């Protein structure tokens, strides 16, 4: 098989678990709230003692995906699984905390906290937790970055460089809510914290990457129901499409900073 298929998608948002938790109209459901937050996942491991909330959200999304796909951790462990991690802003909280601590001369925590300011720390924690040692990519940006990641995953699958690929997105906003309030022209409301993960496997459908001029129906639906979830939006759209499972054409699009990207499985 030289194509790919979306085998499963897991979605966790400030509205709750799964697409079933999404309201019909996010703007109305937000009732004026600027940010719909998610809590810190309660993960037991001692290794997560210092990990940031956004790291744990990434781990929680992959766990949810494995449950959704009825897979054990052993299946994805090793170098046959590719990991693509995408975020537009989830590093913001740790970056802000580090800058503020430095300004206040609170240097005690810096040794522990500085590594977590890197977006690669979030992907790193997921890779460590699930033993992922295969092809690796981290993209920073809004919805088009997730579409780029999905496209790269399909290329790796088509070339046989991995047996499966995880495309993971995390977005958090609560800690930086004051900054987003100042940058209203850049992001819509409500800002909804989210994490989502898609599992791509070899399949018979070919993926076409392009730059459509208009949003797909799925893009509009995902925004209307979930709110502004930035990099998570294309994965939520895939989930709303019924995961774009084998044999069903699906097209996801996304726009950020005036640029639009799209990916269609046909």
């Amino acid at each position: 098989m030289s194509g790919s298929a979306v085998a499963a998608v897991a979605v966790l948002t400030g509205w709750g678990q799964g697409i079933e938790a999404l309201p019909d109209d996010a703007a109305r459901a937000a009732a004026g709230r600027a940010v719909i937050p998610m809590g810190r996942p309660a993960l037991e491991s001692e290794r997560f003692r210092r990990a940031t909330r956004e790291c744990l959200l990434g781990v929680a999304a992959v766990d949810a995906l494995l449950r959704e796909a009825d897979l054990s951790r052993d299946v994805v462990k090793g170098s046959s699984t590719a990991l693509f991690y995408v975020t537009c802003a989830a590093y913001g909280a740790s970056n802000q905390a580090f800058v503020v601590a430095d300004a206040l001369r609170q240097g005690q925590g810096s040794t522990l906290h500085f590594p977590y300011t890197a977006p690669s720390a979030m992907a790193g924690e997921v890779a460590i937790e699930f033993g992922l040692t295969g092809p690796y990519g981290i993209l920073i940006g809004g919805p088009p970055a997730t579409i780029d990641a999905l496209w790269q995953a399909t290329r790796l699958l088509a070339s046989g460089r991995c047996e499966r690929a995880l495309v993971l997105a995390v977005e958090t906003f609560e800690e930086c809510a004051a900054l987003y309030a100042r940058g209203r022209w850049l992001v819509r409301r409500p800002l909804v914290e989210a994490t989502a993960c898609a599992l791509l496997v070899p399949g018979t459908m070919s993926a076409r990457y392009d730059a459509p001029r208009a949003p797909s129906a799925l893009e509009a639906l995902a925004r209307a129901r979930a709110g502004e979830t930035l990099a998570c939006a294309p994965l939520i759209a895939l989930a709303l499409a019924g995961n774009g499972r084998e044999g069903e054409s699906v097209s996801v699009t996304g726009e950020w900073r005036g640029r639009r990207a799209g990916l269609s499985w046909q």
Partner: protein
Amino acid sequence: MTGRPTSRPAEPVALVAAGAVTPLGADLDAFWSGLVTGTDGISMIERFRVDDLRVGRGGEIKKLRVSPQGRHAGCRATLLLLAAADDLRARTVIDAEPERVAVVLGTALGGVEQLERALAPGGRPRQAAAALYDSPAHALARALGARGPVLTIGTACAAGATALGTGADLLRAGAVDVVIAGGYDGLCRFVMRGFDALRSLTRERVRPFDRRRSGLLLGEAAALVLMTREGWTKGPKLGRLLGHASASDGSHIAAPDPHGRGLEFAIRGALDEAALAPADVDFVSAHGTGTPLNDRIEAEVLSRTLGGRAAEVPVNSIKGALGHSMGAAAALEAVMCLLASRDGVVPHTLGLEEPDPACPLDHVMGSPRAARPRISLSTSLGFGGCNAALVLEGTES
């Protein structure tokens, strides 16, 4: 991978021209002549406060030419990119429809210095938006008039290599006709404070692969390469990108895998994509940060992958001259490989005087070496367990 690879090679991608701004000077020529003459780009940092840090030195660019487009940028990272773009455009023409031109950049820090400003008293909303890590790439795309995909790669200090590899994939897929790819990062209080707290910075000079090495120093730079499919442009080219791979360690957030398994996976993957064997490699541009752990692990991986030829393939690191320029590092090192092929000389590793017996490689040290590598391997590692490798083919001048 000891024998010949069996896979079909990926379509090579042409690297037409490059532009750069580094602590060694304002353009690519200054970068190259500085490396060959052994110029030390490390100095006391002057642009922001470092007096309370253990180490206040780094590869700071003292005079940055600001183009008219950059006068309102404000962001150091964007200014570095615009300076590198000016240098690139002085060497080649971007000859494609704007919608068919992509920008793919690697970075470890994005516009984070703008966050420091946004959070300071009187900080402005525009600074908050510019603090997003993808902001400098979008600013560069606007300046170039590029209207194709704009990608920011966040694999930390391996990001420049992954950006070139991703750019090649966009071209091979026919998604665009021209890619401006590379990497950048500016020095700022944020990153100096962080690495200072980690005790990763040396108080001595940077000594990659030396028995006395004691840490790295940071630097700032931007490097851009214009990439096309083979045959898209006529005229001289710097060389070709034959293979790329990125891999995760899955081992530790801030330290490399003790056995370098991710780096080895990336090297073997890049060679496989190029349909080349380790025996084909003529030169290795190592990550070579000068930290005790990185250099030992990297040397072990190179010894394993190159096998019996490990002692005869020249290896260098340019971080002794520039410092570690983070997101720019791998892109600069790729360009250095191609310039070495063009001019028939491999720059030496500044600061390396007494090779560590634990790093038994054919180090280029003391002075540049007359050699004209055809196939180069460039390796990179980054925070979060990121690894990347590029396989490049140079052309003679």
